[in-house]
């Protein structure tokens, strides 16, 4: 098992797409830091500012609405007192990082299926389940490296852009960032599972990007509406059980109960999707 994990780690950090996406992500982080001051100043006239991408709301409402797209709010931020941990937490909850991670990990999990490498090793491992565990471990290592690197880039960029470096409250932001990372990882495991079950890079990428942009929230709202209208089931709120909803809902300084519930949901996702992956790799033929 350890050797299989070493092999996956060796592979993941040698993929061309790893470096390409790392460069793009770092560029995005630098750019957001560079335009941060302008965005906050513009925000004095508007309630919220879009930093990246699109911001869509259902029925034009702002509260309790299903959001899709990548949105970061700079509302209430003070140009003279911007904290690295706060801005970094915003990036995590917005879905900015998750989008890049989904793109890379879909490429990663489909690479050995696409080029046939899986057939070189699939027969030589003692248990096929180790192919899944090793991928999960490699993905976890990747997420950690990615988050640490982007955090450091964020800090340096903010120092250069703002002229000062203020970390923010570790007590408030570290648990928040930790939970966001767990949610991020659970979400990525779900996307990797979907890709492996579908065995299609195109569909995996489509599903991953749509989910990371919050499309599942829209689908859940639709299901809620249908259930409400035809089955008389009201207040279903399926979107409350989505990882992306929890990512955007969670705020720094959240209570212990909320954090526990969110972590339980993340664990449930991990268990369910890992089981699906294991069954898929054990029972199906390796193509």
């Amino acid at each position, binding site marked *: 098992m350890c*050797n299989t994990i070493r092999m996956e780690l060796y592979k993941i950090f040698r993929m061309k797409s790893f470096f390409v996406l790392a460069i793009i992500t770092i560029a995005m982080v630098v750019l957001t830091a560079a335009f941060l001051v302008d965005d906050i100043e513009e925000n004095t006239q508007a309630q919220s500012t879009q930093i990246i991408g699109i911001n869509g709301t259902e029925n034009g409402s702002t509260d309790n609405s299903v959001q899709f797209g990548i949105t970061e709010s700079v509302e209430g931020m003070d140009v003279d007192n911007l904290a690295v941990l706060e801005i970094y937490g915003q990036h995590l909850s917005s879905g900015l990082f998750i989008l890049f991670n989904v793109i890379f990990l879909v490429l990663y999990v489909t690479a050995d299926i696409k080029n046939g490498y899986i057939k*070189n090793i699939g027969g030589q491992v*003692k248990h096929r389940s180790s192919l899944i565990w090793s991928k999960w471990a490699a993905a976890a290592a990747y997420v950690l490296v990615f988050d640490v690197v982007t955090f450091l880039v964020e800090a340096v960029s903010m120092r250069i852009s703002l002229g000062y470096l203020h970390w923010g409250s570790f007590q408030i932001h570290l648990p928040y960032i930790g939970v966001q990372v767990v949610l991020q990882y659970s979400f990525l495991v779900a996307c990797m599972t979907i890709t492996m079950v579908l065995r299609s890079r195109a569909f995996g990428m489509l599903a991953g990007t749509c989910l990371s942009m919050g499309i599942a929230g829209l689908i859940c709202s639709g299901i809620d509406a249908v259930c409400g209208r035809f089955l008389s089931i009201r207040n279903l709120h399926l979107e409350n059980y989505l990882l992306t909803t929890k990512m955007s809902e969670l705020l720094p300084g959240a209570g212990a109960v909320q954090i526990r519930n969110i972590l339980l949901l993340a664990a449930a996702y991990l268990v369910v999707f890992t089981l699906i992956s294991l069954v898929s790799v054990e029972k199906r033929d390796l193509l």
Partner: protein
Amino acid sequence: MNEILLETHGLTKQFRHYKAVNNIDMHIRRGAIYGFIGRNGAGKTTFLKMVCGLANPTAGEYSIFGCTGKELAQVRPRVGCLIEAPGIYANMTARDNLMIKARLFGIKDKKYADGILDTVGLSDVGRKKAGHFSLGMKQRLGIGLAMVGNPDFLVLDEPINGLDPQGIAEVRDMLRRLAQERGLTILISSHILEELSKLCTDFGIIHKGCLIKELSQEQLLQQCEKRLELVLDEPEKAMTILDGMNIHKYEAIDKTHLYVYERLEDSMLINRELVTAGVLPREMKVNQEELESYFLNLTSA
């Protein structure tokens, strides 16, 4: 030498109503180079995938190194395979590709990859990306990947596919050398009997999912040897007469056909002796079958 390394019993793979592999009983001796021959779509790859543990059989079982069922997990690392196209990372070098797999076996020494590159004749590729390799080089790298971890049993699915005659000869020489120097057992599939006949010690011919013949190199060569073909009604009686003439290298094919492989120049004498003994040959001719036509006759029957 006669120890059986791979043995299958009624191995079957069914996709819905279609049996891609149908009830195959195969036997591969340790140290043999086994040529698995069949036309495109005959079921070769599906069979090899099952043997390599990439696909689960619908029915039947197989043993490798005497292990079967769940015990197979213990010997899986001893089976190296190249199934269909060589699975390589195109944007990495040959050495990196080998080192990825070497990690699976806990090997970190880069000299290990150099050794394999040398064995498969790719020692001079340097930093060239595998995606820029010629087809022959990719096939060699695929074989190199199958050799990582020093397996005792190599399963190669059409490794000479798409190669030019020189490339085929090089791969053939390399496999022969590997079998001799390392004592490897090799299962190699192809649809070109002519090429495998120059390399393999044993052969299995598959057609429409069924293994229709298993034979050794000697038997194959005998099949294609120059022979006197006799069509007669009493082959048993004819055999007694041949023994009396001190001719022992013959074979009764069926109830009416008898092949004689020696003293072909004495065909007139054989004919006279048979007629004298009251055995009248209905047909008698000296014939030699090409490997290709032998294969075609088998698979079109």
